[in-house]
């Protein structure tokens, strides 16, 4: 994971009539990383993804792909799984996947062999001559995933990729996404469900009210938002020495304490250790969700 940037969006603005969908949005997506695009519904994520896919054009600002101004010939290098996704119900699965692969610019023979490879990998080859209307929603999602990645794009854009999947299939898809990243693909991953972000994303951008309010690597953002809150578990349900630290909350044997920045953490720990048996002690990191809520409130 270098710091080389694959895609950068610079000061992009988009208006629909009087409605501002994007207001000077900036993001830069490093190569071979998973980049989380977070924000509540209606924040402008979909508009941003449509601009990257050249479905719509920005009013102002520019988008660079591999240091080139984004243009039509980049379409082949981008794969997009939109949130609103479906397939032709009456068409056969294989025929349809082939059609969509060819629309991406793949020659017939290559498309066929690639499709066979992915269909076998995901164990769905026996669906090839079935009609889409015979498949369940989760099955159709797998096919949509395949046609999104089929042309080996440099950049993959997934909008809420796990919606509609059961936990088993969701984990299969997660595994595939991670292995694509490890093989050098850059992935933009949009979601409003924060809990799925921390485990999968390397970088994130928070978008709210058409603006980017936070951007950077997950570890760095967490560092920026680090607090002096610690979680400590004791073999008792009472804890004093409150002149050295503040107890924020306590549930049974679990305490959340706030140690002032100027005081020594080891000293505090020793002090507690002398009175009680410590079962566990760890830094209470802010979750992305908490960071997000905090940032939105600070707006």
């Amino acid at each position: 994971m270098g710091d080389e940037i694959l895609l950068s969006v610079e000061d992009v603005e988009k208006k629909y009539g009087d409605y501002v969908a994007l207001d000077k949005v900036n993001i830069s997506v490093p190569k071979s990383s998973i980049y989380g695009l977070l924000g509540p519904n209606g924040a402008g994520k979909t508009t941003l993804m449509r601009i990257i896919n050249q479905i719509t054009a920005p009013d102002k600002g520019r988008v660079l792909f591999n240091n080139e101004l984004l243009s039509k010939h980049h379409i082949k290098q981008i794969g997009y799984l939109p949130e609103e996704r479906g397939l032709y119900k009456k068409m056969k699965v294989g025929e349809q996947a082939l059609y969509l692969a060819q629309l991406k610019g793949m020659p017939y023979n290559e498309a066929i062999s690639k499709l066979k490879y992915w269909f076998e990998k995901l164990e769905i080859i026996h669906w090839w001559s079935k009609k889409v209307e015979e498949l369940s929603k989760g099955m159709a999602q797998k096919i949509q995933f395949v046609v999104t990645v089929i042309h080996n794009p440099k950049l993959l854009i997934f909008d809420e990729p796990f919606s509609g999947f059961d936990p088993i299939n969701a984990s299969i898809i997660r595994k595939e996404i991670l292995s694509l990243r490890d093989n050098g693909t850059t992935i933009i991953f949009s979601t409003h469900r924060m809990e799925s972000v921390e485990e999968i994303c390397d970088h994130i951008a928070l978008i709210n009210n058409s603006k980017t309010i936070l951007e950077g690597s997950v570890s760095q953002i967490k560092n920026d938002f680090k607090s002096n809150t610690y979680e400590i578990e004791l073999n008792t349900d009472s804890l004093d020495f409150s002149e050295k630290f503040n107890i924020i909350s306590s549930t049974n044997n679990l305490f959340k304490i706030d140690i002032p920045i100027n005081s020594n953490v080891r000293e505090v720990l020793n002090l507690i250790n002398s009175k009680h048996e410590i079962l566990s002690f760890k830094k209470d990191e802010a979750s992305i969700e908490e960071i997000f809520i905090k940032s939105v409130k600070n707006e």
Partner: protein
Amino acid sequence: MNKTFLIIKREFLVRVKKKSFIIMTLLAPILMAGLIIAPVLLTDNDNQKRLIAVFEDNSSYSNKLEDSENISFNLVDQSEAEKFKKDINTSPFYALLEIYDTNFTMFSSQQISLNLRKSITNQLENIIEKEKLKNSGIDIKLIESAKTKINIETKIIDDEGKTTSSSTEASMGIGFITGILIYMFIFMYGTMVMRGVIEEKTNRIVEIIISSVKPFQLMIGKILGVALVGLTQFLLWIILTIIVSTFAEILFIDTDEIVKNMNQPNESVLIGELVKLTGGIDLVTIFVSFIFYFLFGYLMYSSLFAAVGSAVDAEADTQQFMLPITMPLILSFILIQPVMDNPDGLLAFWLSMIPLTSPIIMMVRLPFGVENWEILISMSFLILGFIFTTGLAAKIYRTGILMYGKKITYKELWKWISYKG
């Protein structure tokens, strides 16, 4: 491979492979052939020479009955008439006509044909009429010499002074049929495009596709794909109708009879006349123009249909936007009659220039003869109209296909048209 071509190919193949398309394509020519053949079959099945026995009691009509090509009358006495009734199968006679004063009865083993009955009825009516006139002292010769029949022959003189026979009826017939066909085709295939767009929108596949191709490519690909479906169907209909009619003719109809009938008076003359008179109409121009007006009329309207499809979530919501599209079509349909009444009038002229009405109205006017410059201007206007509506539709389309769950108004559509990029 070109992406637009891929889209055209899919749109075409998906529709052509549908059962409903195959059934429609095969069934229509059989129905058409049926419509052509049936009247011929119905009129020409009674061609044998019929021997009719006539028994008459107390009157003298029978000796005035005249044998015709198909019927010959034989006077019989009562015993023979009784014998015929008793043993109808061995009798040489086809039917027996019994006359008691003014009561006429026919006996036969099978239902006698309408033609036979009609010709005997006509003869008897004539005989009785003349009898009555004679009895009241009127000279029959006087009446016969007063009967008149005229027929105005119409001829067209072209620029080189050559005259050809023409027929207003044939012109009207051709104009009407081609006009109606264009009206039907635009509606049929236009709504087919609209349904296709709605299908892509409700299936939510459209965003996947337009991340690979431009919305315009998807729209024009669908429109051209359906146009090919239309042309294929039309061509197959012509070919199949010819094949089916030819086979039906060989199977059911004695060709000699038809030829013979052609020379006969009555309705067959009309067919002969029609064949002769369409010679005055430039059929090649009409055929070429038909293909042109069908294609470009369809292209112009279908892009509007596509725009409507993109703006709604379900077919049920299309009503409010369909009105301005269907109105000029229905208007042209209604105005076919006034245009035929005066094919060179101002109304006809302007309606055949305005692109929204020209595909139908020009086809109605063409068989009556239209100046070349008028046709060329009308065609250029139609092409311009097509470019204009497609541009307009593309703007609505590219925004509409990505809009879900919103009730769209005309104001909203206008906003979409004015969006940039």
